[in-house]
């Protein structure tokens, strides 16, 4: 029995970019639905029941953040936002309201597909996985037993470092904003102490990365947040 083709909803007002996204996704074997405005996008999301949404933030008829909030009210399908380079604040706003990843224009087909694959994989693995043990690089984390090992040796983490690591590895491939991390680890009252997160992220990198100045697992998205990559 062949796996059903994943359905992707693309909301983008520029026809050429829409065409390129469709071509790329179809080559990947996805079913693509296109719309060119927010309103139609919401209707399509409700009627087509896509597995994923690719959303341009610069739509003429509304704010992408509103779209994400509306969608998140009833669905947790992955959302990848597309945005211009100089608008970090828009990206952070979109991620904070529930988007999973972003791409900066201009981007190539390879980048797009890598992100789409990662999100789809995460979705399927999240629905399938029951195991509390995660492995990446030379690290092994047992979330059930609260054990962290590096190359087979137990690794001591402070409570904060552990909570941070646990939150990161349970949200792989997604961009997590500073605010989201602070809320998850320190609680809502510390949502503005973003230097906490940066300092502890540095400490955590020193413990789990081979070369902390050129990290492989905990990737910095400048001005936005962090992304955990297992591979």
């Amino acid at each position: 029995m062949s796996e059903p083709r994943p359905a992707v909803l693309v909301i983008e007002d520029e026809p050429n970019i829409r065409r390129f996204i469709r071509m790329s996704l179809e080559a990947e074997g996805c079913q693509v639905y296109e719309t060119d405005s927010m309103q139609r996008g919401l209707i399509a999301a409700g009627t087509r029941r896509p597995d994923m949404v690719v959303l341009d933030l610069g739509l003429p008829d509304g704010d992408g953040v509103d779209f994400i909030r509306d969608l998140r009210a009833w669905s947790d399908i992955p959302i990848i936002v597309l945005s211009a380079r100089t608008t970090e604040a828009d990206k952070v706003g979109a991620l904070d309201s529930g988007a999973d990843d972003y791409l900066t224009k201009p981007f190539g087909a390879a980048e797009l597909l890598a992100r789409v694959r990662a999100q789809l994989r995460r979705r399927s693995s999240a629905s399938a996985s029951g195991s509390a043990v995660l492995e990446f690089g030379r690290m092994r984390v047992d979330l059930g037993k609260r054990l962290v090992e590096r190359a087979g040796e137990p690794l001591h983490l402070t409570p904060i470092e552990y909570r941070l690591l646990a939150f990161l590895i349970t949200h792989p491939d997604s961009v997590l904003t500073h605010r989201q991390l602070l809320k998850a680890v320190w609680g809502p009252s510390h949502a503005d102490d973003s230097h906490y997160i940066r300092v502890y992220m540095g400490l955590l990198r020193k413990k789990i990365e081979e070369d902390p100045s050129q990290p492989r697992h905990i990737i910095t998205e400048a001005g936005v947040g962090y992304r955990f990559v297992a591979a």
Partner: protein
Amino acid sequence: MKDIRPDPDLILDRIKEEEMRAARGKLKIFFGASAGVGKTYAMLSAARQQTEQGTDVVIGVVETHGRKETEALLTGLERLPLKAVAYRDRVLQEFHIDAALARKPALLLVDELAHSNVPGSRHAKRWQDVEELQSSGIDVYSTVNVQHLETLNDVVGGITGIRVWETVPDHVFDAADEVVLVDLTPDELLQRLKEGKVYLPQQAERAIQNFFRKGNLIALRELALRRTADRVDSEMIQYRRDKSVTRAWQTSESLLACIGPGDGSGRIVRSAARIAARLDVPWHVIYVETPKLRHLSEKRRLQTLKSLKLAQEMGSETASLSGSDAIATIIDYARDHNLSKVIVGRDHAQSWRPWKRSFADRVGKLAPDLDIIQVAREDTPADRRQEEKSTSESLLDRLRAPWQSFAMSSVFCALVTLIAMPLHTVFDRANIAMLFLMAVVLSAVRYGLGPAVAAAFLNVAAFDFFFVPPRFSFAVGDVQYLMTFAVMLAVGLVTAKLTADLKFQARVASRREQRVRALYEMSRDLSGALIAEQIAEISQRFAATGFGARAAIMLADERDRLHEPIQVPGGVPTVDVGISQWAFDHCAEAGWGTDTLAGSPLLYVPLKAPMRTRGVLVLEPSPSRRLMAPEQRRLLDTFARLVAISLERVHYVDVARATTVQMESERLRNSLLSAISHDLRTPLAALVGLADSMSMTQPPPTGQQCDIAASMREEALRMNSLVNNLLDMARLQAGAVKLNRQWQPLEEVVGSAIKAMRSTMAGHRVGVNLPAELPLLEFDAVLVERVLCNLLENAATYTPPGSTIEIGAAPAARDQIDIWVEDDGPGLPAGKEELIFNKFERGRKESATSGVGLGLAICRAIVAAHGGTIRAENRHGRGARFVFSLPCGNPPSLDGAEKDLPEEESPK
């Protein structure tokens, strides 16, 4: 336990005072009982010690009076040149304040603080010069004799019989930072005098010989010692207050001194100053001008003004009030200002009016809750005679009127006589007398007091001559008529006086109303003014009607420099820029009729508004007008205040307009930039994407087609980076970039920059060398990543493949962190290290490397926006090195990070 913490407000006040003192130069006074005790010697010795300690000491002015020991001390000290000032037919050497301000030494010696400057100097007194020196931060040493202290002046005069006219206000003495008493026993002083060691001017030798009697010297020494002790005492109180040893006794009770028009007002002011100083309370001096006192001669009114000014100089609050009842006004003022002690001058005993209660008694009766202190006036009987003379002078003044008025009132009398002649047979003589009285009243109403008095006498004479039997003779048949004459004259005089007074008061009232109306009209006009020129015109108009003066307004710019007067149609007086700038800088009046440069024909009034001084109002008073009379002063103050407030309002109208324009242009620029960036990027994004998707077309493209697609993609991406650079530069230059500064570790942004540039630097080795203990830095991560990316790209572009690029950082001087990107490539072209940061400047013009040369310019703009600097240099061995610095600031602590964790088990 009693709470003995100091009052926070007091501490704040003291801190403010100390801050003010720190900025101000310090004044040290060498204080002595009389000339010859060695004050100048002591001052010079102290100055020499300072010089030895390396202080920059300069002599402003020192009087050695030819004493050899003193002169010996002068050698080796720098002396300022004196200023030669011509006065009458002599040339006098005066202290040169401008030279001192220009030289600006750390410490300046200025002898004889009480000295009066030659008329025409900037300040009338040398202590005013010293205040200006202090306020520009110069420390001053000076000398004072006890008889030169304002409040002790008359006491010393009483002891020695010699009054000196050069005085120093006590507040100057009290505000001095240090006072050193230079003491010498009378015997030693006399000995020195005998040995000729004390300078005595030839012409006044006799008087001075009288002065230097032993009794005098002992008394003076006692005064000097006591005054010093008072000062030390108040220092002690201050110290105790500072250290809060105990809560010092403090009272809110203040003094109110009332002065009248007499010569004794100066004495009352001095007494009040002494009492206030002893009680350590603030004090007020007021003068109440009743309608009656307006009749006084100019000279007497000026005398009162002088006393008020004296009081102000001695540190009191002063006010000149007007009211119909002096006592009620005084009591109201005392109650309003919470003044519980009232000082009044003792009335002269008036033996011929024993029933008349003294002024003090009358105040006391109306306000039993006030303490009344009576003090002596200084008038000796001789003074009083003079005073009476001047009173009668003013009475004569009041009687004065043009001769036509006298003629007309005589005609009145003649008319009444003519009318009464035929009636004489019909009416009783008493009624005829009534007619004459009416003539007096009419004269008073029409022509004033003098003609009315003349009419009163003429009428009695006419009545006697024409109507009293025997008629047509001054002889009187019945003694009864003598009584009639007396009453007629008395009634006539009293009526004349009352009528004339009423008329005078009505005139005063109408004049006051006129002034109020003029002010009202001006403020109405001012409230409608929208530009400074209109204000200048309105004030010109008001000055002409209110003061009979020409006015000009000089506005100050942001750097506190005054501009030329605003031109108005009527023309402006020729102003002295120096004086107006002085008045503005010191926020004090200058020029005509003030303490500062009184010789100038113009009066310069600073325009003080709530936020700052806006400029200077220049008035050219016409000679006949009295600008210094109290009511005119008040009017002038109100005038200046209103103008200043209007100027401030106009200024803020301009500011608001400029802000609106700026906001609008900023908004426009931002929307333009973002529109451009969107419009340029969208086709590029499509181009990159479409080039990519070519490989997915069916049938699959050939290898050559794939290559073409890849090249298209490359070019589109390059185009994109050029567009990014141009837009970023435009944004940075327009100041439209808002830094999103956050505290973060440097390594994070270094990591993300290397990751972003990985493909560009694929052929290079990249090293990172960050010290472990770098503090957090506050910067905009995206922009600093941009700087690092540009530097890395630069290094990758200008070095051959296989070179090593290294990123490093280290703390540098002055609270900064240096961050560098270095390579081992060919290095920078010599002499171009600075040029490469310019826009559109490229390292090697002939090279084939792409780019428009904006990368480094952007780096510089970003680093500058962070408050840092960037530079390029060649490394000693090989290669180039780009260093930028970021300020450290005060990183936030991580104290709360581990504490406020939600409860949870820690990992095993």
